[in-house]
């Protein structure tokens, strides 16, 4: 890429590359950097009508990571992480229709892309909350559970992860700590992570997460829920012999 720069005053021995060599070299460098090659069919970021929530958040993290001003990172896990991955919510299930209680919203994530040998240092689930008027100005308890095992004839086994308390009029990104689930992913090699979210009012009544203002997959792209994992590399990538 330095073609426009002045050449050094000496000349390196050069040879003409073979037919397949440039492609092999590109592949080797991409592998070394952990780049996967071309991603699956996806509109380029700039061309997308509205940027998605996860890339926007990751871009903010990138700027925080590369910012030299020393303003301090807004993300406490950022400095200890070598690899940060965002995961798009692939399946969303609701039990919020009708009068069946308790209401919940379930999110599933495909974790098969986590590189082997990475240790999880933290994980977050991020969901956008709009102000809710049902009920007006009340306290809401939002709790997150990991779906440990599903059963055909009874309720799933759940593992408590986090609880946040906020006002119904609050607006913005709600961050739930799901780090405790990460031990489970690594131990059981369970790559399909199911997370279940419950909302309760102050008097203990279950509430439809949608009515509480929590946005799901149907929300605008920039406000869709996603998950972020923070990892520490156990070893540097080894350059494969060519």
């Amino acid at each position, binding site marked *: *890429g*330095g073609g426009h*720069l002045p050449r*050094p*005053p*000496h*000349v*390196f*021995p050069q040879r003409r590359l073979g037919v397949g060599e440039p492609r092999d070299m*590109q592949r080797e460098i*991409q592998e070394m*950097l*952990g*780049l*996967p*090659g*071309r*991603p*699956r069919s*996806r509109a*380029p*970021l700039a061309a997308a009508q509205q940027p998605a929530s*996860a*890339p926007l958040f*990751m*871009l903010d*993290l*990138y700027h925080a*990571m*590369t910012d030299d001003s020393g303003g301090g990172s807004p993300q406490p896990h950022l400095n200890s*992480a*070598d*690899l*940060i*991955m*965002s*995961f*798009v919510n692939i399946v969303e299930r609701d039990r919020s229709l009708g009068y069946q209680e308790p209401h919940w919203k379930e999110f599933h994530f*495909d974790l098969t*892309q986590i590189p082997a040998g990475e240790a999880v240092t933290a994980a977050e689930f991020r969901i956008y909350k709009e102000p809710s008027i049902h009920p007006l100005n009340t306290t809401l308890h939002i709790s997150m559970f990991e779906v440990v095992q599903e059963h055909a004839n009874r309720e799933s086994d759940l593992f408590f992860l986090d609880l946040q308390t906020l006002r119904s009029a609050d607006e913005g990104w709600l961050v739930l700590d799901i780090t405790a689930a990460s031990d489970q992913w690594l131990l059981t090699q369970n790559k399909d992570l199911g997370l279940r979210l419950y909302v309760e009012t102050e008097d203990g009544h279950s509430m439809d997460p949608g009515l509480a203002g929590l946005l799901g997959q149907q929300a605008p792209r920039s406000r869709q829920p996603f998950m972020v994992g923070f990892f520490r590399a156990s070893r*540097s990538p080894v350059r494969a012999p060519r």
Partner: protein
Amino acid sequence: TARLLKKKQLNQINRLPHSNKQLGIFDDGHGSHSREFCRRHELYVNFRDLGWLDSVIAPQGYSAYYCAGECIYPLNYCTNTTNHATMQALVHLMKPDIVPKVCCVPTELSAISMLYYDKNSNVILRRERNMVVQACGCQ
């Protein structure tokens, strides 16, 4: 013994006319007039030029630098050198056909951060180590 050996070596060096101007196996053939000591040079790696912006979101490129130049005995001007490099440079002077010249290589590297899409359109932010040359030396 060391003193005698040193004296002998110095004599040998003195007896090699223009020895440091003879071409070694890594010489460029341009002669001493174009010689430049080992140092860091500008190199900007542009991901757009490489056609990688399909997957790389940021940065669009970065200053990687590279090391180039010669490592000729004596290496006093080159701070990042090892004792072994000094010895090899000296032996190269005496036996340029057998012992290669000391290499000008990165001695200090730093990391960059890269933001890119994986195959499933998940976004990954990764700190890649040893990507930017901070210092060069003869080793």
